[in-house]
């Protein structure tokens, strides 16, 4: 399978990945070790969807559309609770090498990861017998796709009006040469000795998902988790601001319409 892939796809970029990602406490893109990339979040970007969100974390660009809650298909067994079905797709131009046809193992893993992160946040009892379909499209995979996708998907669920216990914020941490890097890019996570992705409900600090890769000692893991939780706290304010802006804009528009209707 791997041989087949090499034979069929042509590498996008000819240059190698950089060998050194940290120099004197400064990263390749000029960030400090504990600095987030530039974050852009916006909801309501897909008009046909019940809810949608677009997230840009540096070079990672993710678009999420939520459809539903709508009637579950017949073959799905009866359930008192609702369901959230997540489908993550990496665009063929999103990664360094062109994606293969069909769903790759990476996409399956991302779908399962995002689903686990979201299920704990949504009040599934509020839409029994129905299912909400979440479609995530990664337009550019610049690092930390799982975290960005989970955050954006939670915002899209909130935009769709699905009852949530809380929003989900997620971020990744990489350990390169003993240094902990917050929100790594693909170049940085390529050189990592250990990495983790943490998704949590910010108000109650409840962890909905924790994925760790590579080798972590006990103390390193503790430090990594603390850094990730700090990162999530930063991200929470950005996510809430995004939701607030959307809600305030909608409320202002509604009041304007009411005034016009009365006039």
């Amino acid at each position, binding site marked *: 399978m791997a041989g087949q892939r090499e034979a069929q796809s042509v590498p996008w970029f000819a240059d190698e990945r950089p060998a050194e990602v940290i120099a004197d406490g400064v990263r390749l893109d000029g960030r400090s070790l504990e600095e987030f990339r530039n974050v852009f979040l916006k909801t309501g970007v897909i008009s046909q969807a019940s809810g949608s969100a677009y997230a840009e974390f540096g070079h990672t660009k993710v678009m999420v559309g939520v459809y539903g809650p709508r*009637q579950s298909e017949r073959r799905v067994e009866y359930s008192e609770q609702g369901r959230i079905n997540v489908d993550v797709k990496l665009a063929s131009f999103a990664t360094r090498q062109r994606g293969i046809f069909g769903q790759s193992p990476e996409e399956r893993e991302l779908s399962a990861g995002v689903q686990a992160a979201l299920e704990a946040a949504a*009040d599934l009892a509020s839409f029994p017998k129905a299912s909400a379909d979440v479609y995530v499209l990664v337009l550019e995979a610049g690092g930390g796709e799982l975290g960005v996708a989970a955050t954006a998907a939670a915002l899209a669920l909130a*935009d769709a*009006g699905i009852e949530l216990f809380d*929003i989900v914020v997620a971020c990744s941490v990489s350990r390169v040469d003993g240094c902990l890097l917050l929100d790594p890019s693909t170049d940085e996570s390529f050189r990592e000795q250990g990495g983790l992705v943490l998704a949590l409900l910010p108000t109650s600090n409840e962890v909905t998902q924790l994925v760790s890769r590579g080798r972590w000692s006990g103390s390193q893991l503790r430090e990594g988790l603390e850094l990730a939780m700090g990162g999530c706290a930063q991200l929470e304010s950005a996510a*809430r601001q995004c939701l*607030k802006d959307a*809600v305030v804009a909608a409320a202002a528009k*509604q009041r304007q*319409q009411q005034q016009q209707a009365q006039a």
Partner: protein
Amino acid sequence: MHVDHRRGIHSSATVRCRSPSTLATITHSAAVCRMESKYQALGRPGEGTVGVVCVGDVIEPQANDSVLRGHGTLLRSGSLVASRCGRVQRWNQLVLVEPLAGAYAAAVGHVVVGRIVQVEATRWLVDIHATTLAVLPLSTAGGAVRKAAEGAVDMRSILVEGDLIAAEVQAVRSDGQVQLHVRDAVASKLPPGTVVDIPAALVRPQRKHVHHWAATGIKAVFGCNGAIWIGVDGGSSAAVPGIEQVQAVVQAATAVRALAGVGQAITPAAVERMVP
């Protein structure tokens, strides 16, 4: 109870409490309409934009027993927290979060335009753009009941998958299932036309949901679920509409889409102003 048909009442004013009995719900809804003029939506004190909350925002720091928890709220460690983005509404002791743009929430008395998606032995399942499919039982389908008395009823001879119908919401069960009823199942099938899908919040329950254009012979049905059907008036489903009728239908549909695009409430009067 014709509370919903009064003009000017927002569909979300029909409030459903979580715990009280049906009697309390009816009393509450009637009381809500009386109170409507006196009370306004109140939000959190000291908030810039009054009453707007997001998921996870605290509405009431100390929610004691006197606070009735409505839709869109959660109880977390003694305080009332919003589980939806929207505007906080307080009606006496009831606190709820009204979503600014949510899915269609059916209520008794709403007129909806739906499409048959499944034919079962004694009922049809109708897609009304809500969370789950609505049910149109044979027993409530008017004229078909008389046929049933003669013997086995062929459901498909009345309505099949893909047919559009205009129906009224008869009941909303506790599990959210919507039950519809029509005066006559065969007559409720809508003739050729087009359906415009707009946000359900723009179509409020009103006195008249049907508008006729006598000059061109077309009709529009304003479904509270955001589906507006516009088509020929009174023709059989097999009749081919003439070119003038098609033009009139398209004109009316464009008018509805334009109004919805600017967020204007869709009423027969509003469309009439644009398409006389």
